């Protein structure tokens, strides 16, 4: 589907949501697809740090400005494909990390949130028809708050990233039952940071784990990514898909990207 919007969400912070979102975007762009990656975590912006090398100068328009109706989406997107030598175009929309901007986004009215969700819904046609974008990825804030739920309800597919930690799993379970099911969104779960030395991997019980998790969460598991020490040790701001081509983490992510293509 041209212009498919994918939101990356989690119940709690630290599950690897941004690492997945950024590397998935680069993986797609490396394949020659045109990608828009939007930082919708207005409370804790991170793409500005991840793509600091590729931005090349001060940011003229933030995603905040677009949401506030102060610029167009074309103005709020920065093309970083040349800097990272990507086959396809990678356009990034950055959330403003200034404290005033964060404060401003926190104190929005419900009327503003209605306008915001309408803007996100209309993004698909602008991005695919006017800007030739193949996939749009929303990196959201964790848990249930306006910025994340607006992103989730306006996307075509949602990926919930979770670890095997019981707090994460229980949180995802609740979020799926109380929020996702209410909106009937196409949702898949990506298990990240699964310890490879545990019996899950050593005894080849991966299929069993997936089936148990699918039963517990009542949603499909799109992939299980092991916890790679070098990924954990690397700066969260580093781009593996640029810096460590061929890394098994990226192979896992390519499989996820492949499976995503079959979800309409």
């Amino acid at each position: 589907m041209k212009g498919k919007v994918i939101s990356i969400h989690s119940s709690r912070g630290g599950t690897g949501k941004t690492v997945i979102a950024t590397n998935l975007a680069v993986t797609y762009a490396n394949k020659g697809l045109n990608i828009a990656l939007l930082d919708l975590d207005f409370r804790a912006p991170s793409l500005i740090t991840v793509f600091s090398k590729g931005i090349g100068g001060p940011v003229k328009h933030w995603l905040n400005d677009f949401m506030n109706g102060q610029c167009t989406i074309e103005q709020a997107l920065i093309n970083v494909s040349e800097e990272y030598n990507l086959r396809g175009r990678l356009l990034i929309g950055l959330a403003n990390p200034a404290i005033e901007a964060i404060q401003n986004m926190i104190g929005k009215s419900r009327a503003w949130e209605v306008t915001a969700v309408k803007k996100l819904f209309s993004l698909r046609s602008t991005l695919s028809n006017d800007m030739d974008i193949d996939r749009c990825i929303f990196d959201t804030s964790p848990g249930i708050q306006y910025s994340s739920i607006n992103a989730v309800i306006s996307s075509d597919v949602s990926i919930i990233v979770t670890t095997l930690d019981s707090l994460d799993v229980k949180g995802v379970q609740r979020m799926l039952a109380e929020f996702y099911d209410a909106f009937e969104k196409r949702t898949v779960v990506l298990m990240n940071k699964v310890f490879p030395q545990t019996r899950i991997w050593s005894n080849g019980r991966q299929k069993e784990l997936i089936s148990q998790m699918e039963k517990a969460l009542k949603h499909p598991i799109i992939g299980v990514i092991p916890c790679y020490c070098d990924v954990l040790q690397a700066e969260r701001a580093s781009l593996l898909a640029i810096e460590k081509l061929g890394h098994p983490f990226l192979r896992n992510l390519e499989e996820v990207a492949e499976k995503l293509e079959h979800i309409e």
Partner: protein
Amino acid sequence: MAAGETVRKKWPNLDVNVLLTMLIDELTQVNKKLDSMVELNGKMLKTQEEFLQRIANQSYRREIIKLEPDAMTLLFLPRSLRKTVMALYKLKEATAEDLARETNRLRAVESASANQLVRMGYLKKKREGRRVYFYIE
């Protein structure tokens, strides 16, 4: 014994004419008070009637509470209404037929759902020729 004789015996110097005048004055004042109470009651009934009328046609509620179909609010709406709002987020403005195409439900279902949302104050509707368009303000 008649009441007049009893009064005369008790107060031999009492002038009946003066007494009557006093009574008439008192009665006139009571009458005035009753008139103003009746008038006030009439005003109260009228206000109450207007209030009930405004509630009945929902205009009062729309004036004082502006309802927003934001994502959090949608969570608390019945599933069938939520589906209509979600479709309208996407379509911006739509007829019941457009909504039915988007949600894969019957036109009548969408019409009922959208009109219910209009009555609840979440949606607006406008007529263009023979078509009725629903939208989120």
